[in-house]
């Protein structure tokens, strides 16, 4: 079995998210790191291998600028065997649909049995790449998977977190699965793994190498129209109810909740 894990370089979690007023887009400057949600997908791949399934290869795949190489190094230090870096000027400005298309094209060349990814990226937080990729690859797709077992080497038994409880779903491979962060606790990369990361093969590909049609990607190939983004309004201070007479306090809280139709 061959597993591809989609990974992404995002601004470090410690960097405060803000809208760049000049472009009206998310400001992605500052320290960057591997999207923390993706580390769960890599860990899930590792656990499939360590659980006794015959996993020939775990390949980390990313689309991103040159700096995304660091995220790939981290991905291989966490256990992936090699990585693929799709990077091309023509891809800049791609929206979710275009990004999903470009990633699917890159994945096609690898013909994986299983594509894993994190539930969301820490910057864009779209939660949708998995479905877009699956659509292009004509594979079944599941999201929010928090338990994953390989059955007879060809099927996956997945538990997914639903709004009310859990769904247990069986899917045939190949499939695209996005995992929730409750699925596992990612390991720490050992010093040896960190020092060895640059020695693992990294395949740099351009859009043309994987048959990406240029009018499907980049700003021109994207349907999303960026309007007038603004940072969310600052949270109001909240209301503090001093507890002088408890009966009265309870009444006040109930009234407050009632007013907002929360009861």
């Amino acid at each position, binding site marked *: 079995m061959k597993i591809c894990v989609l990974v992404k370089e995002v601004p470090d979690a410690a960097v405060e998210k803000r809208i760049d007023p000049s472009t009206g887009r998310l400001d992605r400057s500052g320290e960057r*790191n591997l999207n923390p949600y993706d580390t769960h997908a890599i860990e899930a791949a590792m656990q499939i291998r360590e659980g006794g399934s015959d996993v020939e290869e775990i390949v980390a795949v990313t689309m991103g600028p040159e700096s995304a190489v660091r995220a790939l190094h981290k991905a291989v230090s966490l256990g992936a065997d090699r990585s693929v870096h799709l990077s091309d000027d023509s891809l800049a400005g791609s929206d979710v649909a275009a990004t999903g298309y470009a990633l699917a094209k890159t994945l096609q060349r690898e013909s994986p049995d299983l594509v894993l990814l994190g539930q969301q990226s820490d910057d864009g937080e779209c939660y949708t790449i998995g479905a877009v990729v699956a659509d292009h690859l004509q594979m079944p797709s599941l999201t929010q998977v928090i338990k994953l077992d390989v059955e007879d080497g060809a099927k996956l038994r997945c538990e997914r977190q639903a709004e009310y409880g859990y769904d247990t779903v069986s899917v045939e491979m190949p499939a695209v699965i996005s995992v929730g962060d409750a699925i596992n606790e990612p390991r720490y990369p050992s*010093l040896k793994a960190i020092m060895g990361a640059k020695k693992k093969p990294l395949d740099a590909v351009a859009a043309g190498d994987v048959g990406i049609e240029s009018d499907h990607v980049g700003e021109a190939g994207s349907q999303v129209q960026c309007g007038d983004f603004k940072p969310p309004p600052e949270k109001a201070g909240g209301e503090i109810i001093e507890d002088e007479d408890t009966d009265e306090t309870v009444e006040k809280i109930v009234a407050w909740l009632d007013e907002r139709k929360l009861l």
Partner: protein
Amino acid sequence: MAVATDLIAKTDEQKAITEMVRQFADEKILPNAEHYDHEDEFPAPIVEQMKDLGLFGVTIPEEYGGMGLDLTTYAMIVEELSRGWISISGIVNTHFIGSYLLMKFGTEEQKQKYLARMATGEIRAAFSLSEPECGSDVQAIKTTARKLDGAYEINGQKMWVTNGLLSSLVFVLVKTDPSAEPKYKGMTCFIAEKEPGVSENSGEYAGFTVPPKIKKLGYKGVESTELVFDGYRCPAENILGGEEAGLGQGFVQMMDALEVGRVNVAARGVGIAQRALELALRYSQERKAFGKEIAQHQAIQFKLADMATQVEAARLLTLRAARLKDAGERSDLEAGMAKLFASEAGRFCVEESLRIHGGYGYSKEYEVERLYRDAPLLLIGEGTSEIQRMVIGRKLLQRHKI
């Protein structure tokens, strides 16, 4: 001089390593330190994980199963571990000094015998200079080793041995020639083997006793013990560097190791100071007094400013000493300065942080209370501040003799 001008620049690997260790400290050390500190209990699960991560073999060459990383990277790791809890760095610290001694002075057989198992953390090392009656004045040690029937019999008592109980190897400085003049020429470093975790050793290690651990103000969880040698027999081949080359060299070897040890302690000072600053920054923006966050009072802001300045300066001194050593330059003076300044910065910052926490800083509910008890160790271990000043002063005059 091949020293990077940007002292804090990190290679990709150093970035990835410090990031990993920081995450480890945030997730595994900090949430558990209070428990182990309170119980004065050895943090075994944390140490097991550190073995898996390779943290016991940072500077040991790859040919012996280590990572072969430099002192600078090691110092960065120690800072992050100490930011979590200095007892954790203490568990690595004496081991690091032991492996340095082996790498620099050990015979090939000694390296083969110990380094690979040390790199994995399977066996751990302690080092022992201090005695009940002397610490700063190392040349006043009394423990002796006498050759009898092909082996050396060690007699005497050692004090303040960090990792004294759970280590398998103790690099111990003893007198082999009590009449030597100057005294240091009659001192030898032995690699004393024992059973880890056993207080009354028997069989081939008979005569090596580890009394119950010393109760301490802070720096808990890692044991500091006395060692009693009473007719303990150490084979001649366990003289560091071999009998021929190593006899009478112990003092010089140990002083050399203390130089890297000082960089190590300096990094611990930076780590604890950094943590004290972080806690102060957070608390001072949460706590209100006289109608505003205390951080908005200038007196508190000045404290924060002084703390941050000390942390930054301490870090720069530490990295500079480490980088000089890595570049093969002389770094004795710089290591002394780093140790002096960073350990004092640690003490200064924990006290300021405690003050900023007001009464809560004095309560066991807040982490800074532990930091306040932990930090003073760094003023003492590996040479007190007074001794550092003596060393710095002496070296300065040597370098600038008119």
